[in-house]
């Protein structure tokens, strides 16, 4: 009985891991099926689908659009998120609460509603649907994350650090360029990768704010509604591996930057001179 209980938790954990990975592995396998239909069992295998999708004009165009959107939206959300974080750090009490509530508001709206509200907004200001509109929508969605990440880092920064720089002769521009931004750089890089992924993954905003050109998730969605072939499994797998790799790298990057600091502290903190 006791043994069973000790096995139960790891068992549930690995069952969950299987639930997460099995569909993805099955999908990757489907990409190798030598047939025009998505079906099991797989009797004969081919790498043709994987080769073919890499030359699919529509897919390449959608990936290229997704990449441009991701980059543009990330740049916007960091350029805006940084001063928002600075402003938030300066406020306190009720004002800060109100500001934070407004900043994170888009994250708490149902995605469909948020996307539609932005669709109405761009229509009114005369912005065409398309690349810029999608990037704008993604920036709105990812900016709160930038603010939270930057603010977390900013809170760990000693108040005296900027003062020390001023005391040593640094004016406000130099304080920003030499002290504050370098100090924030791990958070900024983390935010950069996070925003890229968030944008690249997004479907709903791209769907409602997009024009004639489709981002990759929108293209995939519309193809899935017409029917499946192993090629879709192949390209999905390729994107899956690319984004997961990128995501893991981002995760590890943020983690080691932070952990590296802590461990070096504890390793040398006790040594006396």
């Amino acid at each position: 009985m006791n043994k069973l209980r000790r096995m139960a938790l790891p068992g549930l954990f690995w069952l969950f891991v299987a639930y997460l990975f099995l569909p993805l592995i099955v999908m990757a396998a489907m990409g190798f099926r030598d047939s025009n239909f998505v079906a099991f069992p797989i009797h004969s295998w081919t790498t043709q689908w994987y080769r073919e999708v890499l030359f699919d004009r529509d897919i390449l165009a959608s990936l290229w659009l997704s990449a441009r959107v991701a980059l543009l939206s990330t740049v916007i959300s960091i350029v805006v998120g940084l001063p928002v974080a600075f402003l938030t750090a300066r406020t306190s009490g009720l004002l800060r609460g109100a500001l934070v509530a407004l900043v994170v508001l888009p994250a708490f709206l149902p995605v469909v509603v948020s996307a539609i509200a932005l669709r109405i907004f761009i229509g009114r200001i005369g912005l065409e649907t398309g690349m810029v509109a999608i990037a704008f929508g993604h920036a709105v969605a990812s900016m709160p994350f930038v603010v939270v990440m930057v603010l977390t880092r900013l809170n760990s920064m000693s108040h005296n650090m900027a003062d020390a720089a001023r005391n040593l002769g640094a004016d406000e521009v130099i304080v920003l360029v030499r002290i504050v931004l370098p100090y924030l750089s791990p958070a900024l890089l983390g935010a950069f990768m996070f925003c890229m992924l968030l944008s690249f993954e997004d479907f709903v905003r791209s769907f409602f704010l997009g024009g004639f050109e489709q981002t990759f998730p929108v293209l995939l969605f519309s193809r899935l509604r017409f029917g499946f072939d192993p090629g879709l499994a192949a390209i999905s797998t390729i994107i899956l591996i690319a984004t997961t790799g990128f995501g893991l790298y981002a995760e590890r990057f943020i983690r080691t930057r932070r952990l590296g600091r802590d461990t070096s502290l504890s390793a040398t903190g006790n040594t006396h001179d």
Partner: protein
Amino acid sequence: MTRLLVGLRRFPPYRALLELYSRSPLLRLLLVAFIPVVWIAATNITPLLQMIEISFYEQYPVRQGEPIEWTLRHYAAFFERSLYITAFVRSFVFASLATIVTLVIVFPVAYYISKVAPKSASTRLLLLVIAPFWVSEIIRSFAWIVMLANRGAVNSFLSMMGLPGTPFELLYNNISLTIGVVYLTSLYMLLPLYAALEKIDDNLLAAAANLGAPARQRFTRIVLPLSREGIVAGCTLVFLLVIGLYAMPQLLGGPNNTLFASTIGQIFAKAGDSWPLGSAFSIILTGSALAYVGLFIALFQRKRRGGAA
């Protein structure tokens, strides 16, 4: 770079500008606040207000030279057709159930990673579980289609095992949708739970055991109360995510089980003249969802205060 900036200070105008900036707190505040205020006003507030405005329009876009006609009929439309109300209620029931299912599935996983697994491995285990979440909703939906389709992996496996009655209709119903949705939401549950559970000092459990509390008591009296914040945060995130889902219900759900978010999306996907209706529905959905979640949070927090007193 620095050298350049230091050198620049030799020029009196630049010098004067720097001094002005250092001296004037008001100028500093204005400069720092400018972009945030403009952006938040433009992206976080205005679109919502415009949506509210449009929801009261008789029609949109307003024709040139014609006066705006105000109406409540788009709100009334919601109550007039059982189709809408059914979808609305279905959405809330489904999102609530999906949230509970996610919590029940993810809690042991978060508990295992944060409390039971060796500390040295916990980071790696967490990464392992997080990894698939960098994949988009659409790809994940597709992966489950491949799994559950009539000639998909599961049915193929079952028929190989000699189970009679294959293929089973596994796809395009609430079960397949739930399987897919939980797949999507578990990260949003996992991270707050993990953060809350990790904060619980292991010594508390040791102390409770030392005081004679059996495993079940340790769980209900120590672990659950101390992870309440994580549970509330996770449930809130997951609920709001599910209530706004658009793509996955169309790919994995049944054709007769439309959720309200899809209803709204389809209204908007049509021509522009249906925007006032869609706006009104959006506001109904948002208002109810936030109120529902607010009620949920308030309920739990009151409980906690009562427990502490």
